[in-house]
């Protein structure tokens, strides 16, 4: 199972999460987003970039509360809430945004 991008293949698991975080690129993000039916805007990219920065530091995606605070700072306080994140990523910011950002899927009771 893999994505094709610029003649290269990038492996993903049964659910479309890429298996090597290092093989991520903006091109792959666009391909995953398209498969998910998410039309990427600047706001989407802000979230994706924050997720990747946070992951690089902590080896896990940020908690939803951490993410909403970061979004409030970057995009304005009226957007710093879970509802807005669901508007951007209808399947849920935790999972769909992580998939597009090339991060592993959050597991557990979430």
């Amino acid at each position, binding site marked *: 199972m893999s994505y094709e991008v610029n003649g290269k293949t990038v492996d993903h698991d049964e659910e479309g999460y890429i298996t090597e975080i290092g093989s991520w690129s903006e091109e792959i993000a666009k391909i995953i987003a398209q498969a998910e039916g998410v039309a990427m805007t600047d706001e989407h990219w802000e979230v994706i970039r924050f997720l990747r920065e946070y992951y690089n530091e902590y080896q896990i995606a940020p*908690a*939803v*509360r951490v993410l909403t605070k970061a979004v409030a700072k970057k995009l304005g306080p009226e957007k710093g809430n879970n509802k807005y994140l669901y508007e951007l990523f209808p399947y849920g910011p935790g999972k769909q945004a992580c998939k597009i950002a090339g991060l592993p899927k959050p597991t557990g009771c979430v």
Partner: protein
Amino acid sequence: MAKFEIPVLSEEPAEDVPGIAVNAMAHSRPFVAKPEHNAPLGFPGALVDDWQEKALGRMGDLLKRFRSLRVFLDSCVKCGSCADKCHYFLGTGDPKNMPVARQDLLRSVYRRYFTLPGKMFGSLVGARDLTQDVLEEWYTYFHQCSQCRRCSVFCPYGIDTAEISMAARDIMDHIGYGQKYCNEIIAKVHKIGNNLGLPGPALSNTLSGLEEDVLDQTGHDVKFPLDVEGADILLVTPSADFFAEPHVDGLIGYAKVFHQAGVSWTVSSYASEAANFGMFIGSYEQMHKVSNRIRKAAQDLKVKRIVFGECGHAWRVAYSFLNTLAGPWDFLDPNYPVPQHIIEFTTDLIRRGGVTLDKSANAGMVLTLHDSCNVARGARMGDQPGGQFVLPRELIKACVPKYVDMHPETTHDKTFCCGGGGGLLTDDLMELRVKGAKPRVEALKQVMRNDGVTHMASLCAICKSQFTKVLPYYDIDMETVVSIHGLVSKAIRLGTNHV
């Protein structure tokens, strides 16, 4: 929105029995665990060559080990009492989701190899060979049981389908045919300390962020301590409480209650998980290993008490099995229950006048409660029978202006599973989860319609995530589901009357 049909809801909850839809859910299977998920648990990486022999060997071991399993497999008289009691049957119409039929998947093999009539007369007495088809059927339908034990409430013999489903999953794990969701998560607990895989530094960052938020919002310096040696209380809570909505509102509520009570407490980064998925896969060895992380954390941090956060099956494991799994707890303060539930802690504080709650902070909210299956049927709270039903309701009523119970056939010990329990809260089972939520959603819609209910409280991380995800399929807002301690968090008046 969905690639499957959303069930049509009935106006009258718990009365609508669906027509039979043979094999309606035969296609529903979770992802199979890969070698990297199985190895850390000591299970074979993939289906072993001599799987049939190994499966029967394991079944024989379990029958020797658990007398209950043999009794359950022997005693069914096919009376039909359970047939319309499973939420997955009610939501899908698939007859193999009738508890009796689910049990028969294992019972037929038990008969064939472990009873004299089955060995002699085979299919004449309902016995079946363990073939590849039977194994696939096990995998499919034992992952359509959330081990909620509602059916056992109605069984005149007390047969517990959950134990049969746990045994089946254990057998499959022992031949390398386990489920990815559960095994991947248990491996993360062994490696990192929680289901999410949230490492210590991320946990620390998350908790200090919450301290800032609460200080900003209330002006009170409420702490969220991590790994504090010598604290009185170790809080063991589902890692979803650190991560997800509406779970985190509950965590903030616990912290405010501890703050108000003036007790010292801490979270442990080593045992940063209340959940114990060892129960879902029927593995006493895994339950034991996961539970012992709590013991080690309690000893290392030299705490006097252990308090559990809002997590359904964790409370069953903690309340009913913790002493056997990880006891004795003689190093803890004997003046307090071991373990104690956060709802017991908070209601006790209210009764002693140690906290002031202001219902007007939750003005406009009309609450109902989803009794979580493992709390309702697998544990108790407080010091009287039924305390697990009384205390959560008492606490909610203290926080909100109005409370309404759902249909009596769907609450207390007859509560329906949320549809995502027992290791099924995974995206690859979304159709099952949506359909399995049908009986609960019917009862919820009824009180929304008739009594103006605006929110449904839950005391389980799985229920909260499940409802947040599936309620929108039924045109109910995802924010309808709230944490009980999320209500406490809003209503509590900080800085008043210390006990």
